[in-house]
């Protein structure tokens, strides 16, 4: 977009012409997948859709992902790895 604006001739160009379609996520996806999509998209945020892809339900940003991964032990929802049980 900066490229398009730089020459001053495109100020009135509709934004649709420079739009990129980012990869998207489903709300049920894990953050693992979210990080990968964020990485792949090259942008700093990607849209999150509901399970039928009918509605955009949120916006996953780099910042939100970082915050979640740094969240306190007690606060973040997390799985407990399997205990070592006697065979």
């Amino acid at each position, binding site marked *: 977009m900066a490229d398009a604006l730089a020459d001053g001739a495109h100020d009135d160009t509709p934004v649709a012409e420079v739009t990129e379609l980012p990869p998207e996520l489903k709300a049920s996806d894990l953050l693992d997948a979210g990080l990968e999509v964020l990485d792949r998209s090259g942008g700093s945020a990607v849209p999150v859709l509901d399970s039928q892809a009918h509605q955009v339900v949120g916006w996953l940003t780099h910042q939100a992902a970082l915050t979640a991964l740094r969240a306190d032990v007690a*606060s973040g929802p997390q799985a407990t790895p399997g205990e070592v049980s006697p065979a």
Partner: protein
Amino acid sequence: MFVVNADTAGRRTGGGPPPPQLYGVPRYLSAVHFFAREARGHGVPEVMYAVARKGGRIAPQVAAVKALASALCIGGGGSVGREGPIVQIGAALGSTLGRVVKVAEPRMRVLVACGAAGGIAATFNAPLAGVLFAMELILADFAAQSFGMVVLASVTASIIGRAALGNTPFLQLPAFTVQHLWQYALFAVLGLLCGGAGVLFTRVLYLIEDACDAIWRGPEWLRPAAGGLLLGLLLLVLRQMYGVGYPVLAAEVAGTYTIGFLLVLLVGKMVATSLTIGIGGSGGVFAPSLFIGAMLGTAFGEVMHLLAPAVAGPVGAYGLIGMGAVFAGAARAPITAVIIMFELTGEYSIILPLMSAIVLASAFSRRISADTIYTLKLRRRGVDLSSPAQGTPRADAISVSKVMLAVPDGVPESATLQDAALALARSDQGVLPVLDATGAYRHRGPSARARWPTPWPTEPTTTRPSLR
């Protein structure tokens, strides 16, 4: 006291042919089954798990039960080593001490490592190897502070061990020197072979363990007795498999056996150790891997002697390097492997081929197998020590919906670039969704259009769905 106990059991079996009536005697009691199930098996993985995932907490009774179980198992002829038991015993004592004096979790881990280091240092009379084993395998960390404490534990244990058992290396090995530059190439090939053998040993161990699990249908506490009979038969055929096997090892490196017999011993040891552990015995895999390595190395050396007598050099050197390299291949602990072989031989001249073979063995083993002989046991129970520890929020355990923010205002696709630039400048993220004329968001999915919700009126930073 437990240290001495397990140790003398090992030495006694090493002292000569054991009384035949001991073969196959259902010697392993059900103590393990009832009092401390962690004491089953080889020991090191349980300690690695306790340190990595449980803040170093190990039940105090593990020390007593493990000492009894492994003394009975090794003393009764089980073809396993002492390092696993002693690491677990030392670690349990360290953990118990930590519990009594109420230390914080990081200190608890170091105490567990101290116990393990002290155990190895005293049993093998190898203070350096004890320290590095604890740092490389148990703590998986070389922080200077923990190093100091582990060294202190190792030195103290060595001094006491030497006072009680005398200052003799646990294995007497002849010294060798490299006589020909070509030998480096041969040692490198041996290193690769040994890396493969280490991985093979790991596979055979768990394969036989699985087979034992699959075949045995009776009560668990009777299994060692039934398995003991089978192991006894194997020991009758191959006496060299009895116990820890250091005397056989020494004889082998000295070049007493023929190539064919060495290979028989190699396979025999893999099977005997796996069977001992598979039937529920308690013992380590370090000594067996040294044993396998010595056999492979010596056999390799003898073959090289036949092929290239001019450059091959002494056969024993190959045996020695094979020992360290197979351990490195199985446990992927190159630092410990180099140091323990160096400590055993006290021979500086062998350090160059030793290091190169061991590093090659570890690298090759990593190439062909994701897990080591220690971590595979944990992996099979669903624990992956290489993944972030419990307590760290994990990206594969949080759903995107818990993390995502409220959607920002969209930009109509008919907007001009200039307007869009302004909106973008005001946005938090430097990216904004572009909406079509109906206010829908066009995406890549099959339905291609999704409704864009009315943005929340307040700033996104204050309306983000909370993680808490």
